[in-house]
């Protein structure tokens, strides 16, 4: 979008302070999501008009501070330092002023044109916390505006201050550290002050960054002619300060800043001790309880999945039916125009079928994302992480990584996308690698088909055993990766428990739609391409019946079937179905229909008897196990590629899962035979 803005405003804040709600309130539907250049971090922008000015609002990522520990924080400090927005609005939760002010201090030190938006003052008052806003503004040296995002109050006032702020952008307050720190700072500033490229107002915070061992700041000075002198001085200063402050300079400076904040709070906040429990505390007595925590969680998840499956099944069925109708219509249209069967099939089976494969996912994903957004916005998601932490330790991960796994049972794609919430790359990779073992909804039709035919009396038990096997595999594989691949320790498990609140309808919808759309954009083309490729395999050479033994896919099947013979299903149809299953595991069911020529009258009876000829109950179980564990579908692989940003890991997942599937199916089949099944 090439629109000219009158001014750019950055929006920043801790999690759960109402920042996103404010962003949605201001920009409405006019927002676009992209990536920060060269980063995997999402960039959200939106524009709106206020009093004749066109404002470009940029949602800045980053959780609790601006030091360059994470990519998010780097993005944010880069934005403020290099792109020089006309104003930065920092949304603060009045209920927890201390913690929020840490970032305010950072922003002031950076000399950003700051406006503080104090949100949730009503709730703070209810808790007995009273803030003297005028005094706070005076001490911070920046404007402080009270807003209430939920009730849409104070927003215009905030924007007016933002417009005024633009003219006078230098923050006037000074944060002074104790003498020792100031002395060391001065030494570094001395060295830097000869550099004309470093503006005077930036000197102090850049040198502070050097003392805090901020990687971002270090990079700024890396190729300066005086860099050797500077880093020698930096090292000396840090060494000296470590003995006075803390071995960890980051922690040391946090303490200093919190000391400053403590003084600020004493002058601006008065507290009445409020006896009695808040609603959040009452709810947490159950949600986090040793006894009730897990049952309550299971109940919530059960409920969510019930609704999810009901709704998404009918929505998917609707779309499937729609595409079926379109396919029929197009088929008769094309034959009317005298197109060859081959061309008709390309259009109908290849392209329309391929688009259908993409769109089938949309309601499933949309629904899942909607439920996640509700769970997240209500505050319950953080409690789930707390409750499941002990179980997740068995996998070498912590509680937060449980959420992607639970999502995986619905669909691995959102599961893998949800690993974004994990901090370290190690945790994310591990969570991504085990996610495909969570038996997704698309695998269920395969189990239902086979278990229905071969284990009519124990269908439920058989299907349940597959889900359990998937979890077991995740535990085992997680253990192996932890031992041999990812030896470093997991990041410490720290999350904040936000207060519960009723999620806003609009916020949840925007959230879910954004994620769904991102999936359609990124994975859609890949799924479509693979669907067409598979169609070609099934239809070439020209003239063969779709997916028949004579087609390329059929000869592939013939060629590869000996590989599956030791697992009990060496018939070529099973092999071809597995190849087609790469496009989506639910396709396996339909493929068997086509391959056994049962599609015409679609009689399940003929398919059942055909399958009985080629499978025994034991080999059908081995087949189901293989379907559970082998290479995830293309959509999942696309998600893995997108989230890891690496083809290497994507190919690794595609291969190691086939190997595991083969081994496990082999063991089950051959043990079963030894036991006489």
């Amino acid at each position, binding site marked *: 979008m090439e629109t000219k803005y009158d001014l750019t405003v950055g929006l920043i804040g801790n999690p759960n302070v109402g920042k996103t709600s404010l962003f949605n309130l201001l920009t409405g539907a006019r927002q676009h999501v992209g990536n920060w250049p060269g980063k995997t971090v999402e960039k959200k922008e939106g524009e709106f008009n206020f009093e004749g000015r066109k404002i470009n609002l940029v949602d800045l990522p980053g959780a609790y501070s601006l*030091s360059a520990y994470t990519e998010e924080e780097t993005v944010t400090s880069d934005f403020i330092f290099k792109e020089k927005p006309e104003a930065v609005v920092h949304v603060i939760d009045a209920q927890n002023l201390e913690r929020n002010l840490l970032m305010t201090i950072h922003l002031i030190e950076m000399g950003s044109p700051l406006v503080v938006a104090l949100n949730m003052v009503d709730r703070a008052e209810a808790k007995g916390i009273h803030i003297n806003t005028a005094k706070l503004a005076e001490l911070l040296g920046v404007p402080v505006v009270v807003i209430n995002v939920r009730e849409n109050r104070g927003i215009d006032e905030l924007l007016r201050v933002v417009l005024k702020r633009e003219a006078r952008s230098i923050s006037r307050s000074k944060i002074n550290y104790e003498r020792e720190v100031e002395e060391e700072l001065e030494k570094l500033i001395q060295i830097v002050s000869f550099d004309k490229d470093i503006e005077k107002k930036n000197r102090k915070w850049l040198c502070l960054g050097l003392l805090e061992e901020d990687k971002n700041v270090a990079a700024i000075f890396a190729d300066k002619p005086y860099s050797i002198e500077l880093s020698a001085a930096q090292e000396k200063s840090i060494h000296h300060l470590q003995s006075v402050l*803390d071995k960890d300079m980051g922690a040391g400076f946090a303490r200093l800043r919190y000391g400053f904040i403590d003084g600020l709070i004493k002058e601006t906040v008065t507290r009445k001790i409020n006896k009695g429990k808040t609603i959040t505390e009452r709810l947490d007595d159950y949600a*986090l309880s040793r006894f009730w925590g897990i049952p309550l969680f299971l109940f919530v998840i059960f409920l969510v999945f019930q609704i999810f499956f009901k709704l998404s099944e009918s929505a998917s069925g609707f779309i499937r039916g729609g595409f079926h109708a379109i396919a029929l219509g197009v088929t008769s249209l094309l034959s009317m125009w005298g197109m060859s069967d081959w061309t008709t099939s390309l259009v109908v089976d290849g392209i329309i079928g391929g688009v259908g494969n993409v769109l089938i996912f949309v309601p499933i994903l949309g629904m899942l994302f909607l439920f996640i957004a509700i769970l997240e916005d209500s505050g319950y998601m953080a409690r789930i992480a707390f409750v499941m932490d002990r179980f997740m330790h068995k996998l070498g991960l912590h509680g937060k990584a449980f959420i992607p796994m639970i999502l995986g049972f619905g669909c691995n794609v959102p599961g893998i996308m949800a690993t974004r919430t994990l901090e370290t790359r190690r945790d994310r990779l591990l969570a991504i690698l085990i996610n495909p073992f969570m038996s997704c909804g698309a695998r269920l039709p395969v189990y239902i088909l086979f278990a229905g035919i071969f284990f009519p009396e124990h269908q439920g038990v058989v299907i349940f055993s597959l889900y359990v096997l998937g979890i077991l595999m995740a535990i085992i594989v997680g253990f192996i990766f932890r031992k041999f691949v990812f030896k470093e320790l997991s990041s*410490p*498990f720290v*999350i904040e428990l936000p207060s519960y609140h009723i999620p806003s309808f609009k916020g949840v919808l925007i959230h879910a739609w954004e994620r769904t759309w991102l999936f359609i954009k990124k994975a859609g083309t890949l799924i479509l391409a693979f669907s067409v490729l598979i169609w070609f395999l099934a239809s070439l050479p020209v003239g063969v019946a779709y997916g028949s033994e004579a087609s390329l896919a059929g000869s592939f099947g013939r060629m590869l079937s000996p590989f599956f013979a030791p697992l009990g299903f060496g018939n070529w149809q099973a092999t071809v179905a597995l190849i087609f299953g790469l496009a989506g595991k639910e396709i396996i069911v339909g493929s068997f229909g086509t391959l056994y020529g049962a599609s015409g009258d679609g009689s399940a009876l003929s398919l059942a008897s055909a399958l009985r000829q080629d499978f025994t109950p034991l080999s059908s179980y081995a087949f189901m196990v293989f379907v559970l564990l082998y290479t995830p579908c293309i959509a999942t692989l696309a998600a893995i590629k997108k989230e890891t940003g690496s083809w290497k890991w994507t190919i690794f997942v595609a291969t190691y899962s086939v190997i595991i599937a083969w081994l496990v199916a082999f063991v089950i089949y051959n043990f079963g035979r030894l036991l006489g099944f």
Partner: protein
Amino acid sequence: MAELGIFAGAEIEIAKNDGRGPLLVKVFDSKIVLGQSGAQKIYGDKI
């Protein structure tokens, strides 16, 4: 963790500790979940 207010010299209230599984600590006015492994590295005095 320092950013959340858990640093040497900070005042922290342990709101919940079942002995196994993560702890719940109160820092300033927010509740924070802290994994056992992280919590074991923190030493404090009772106040």
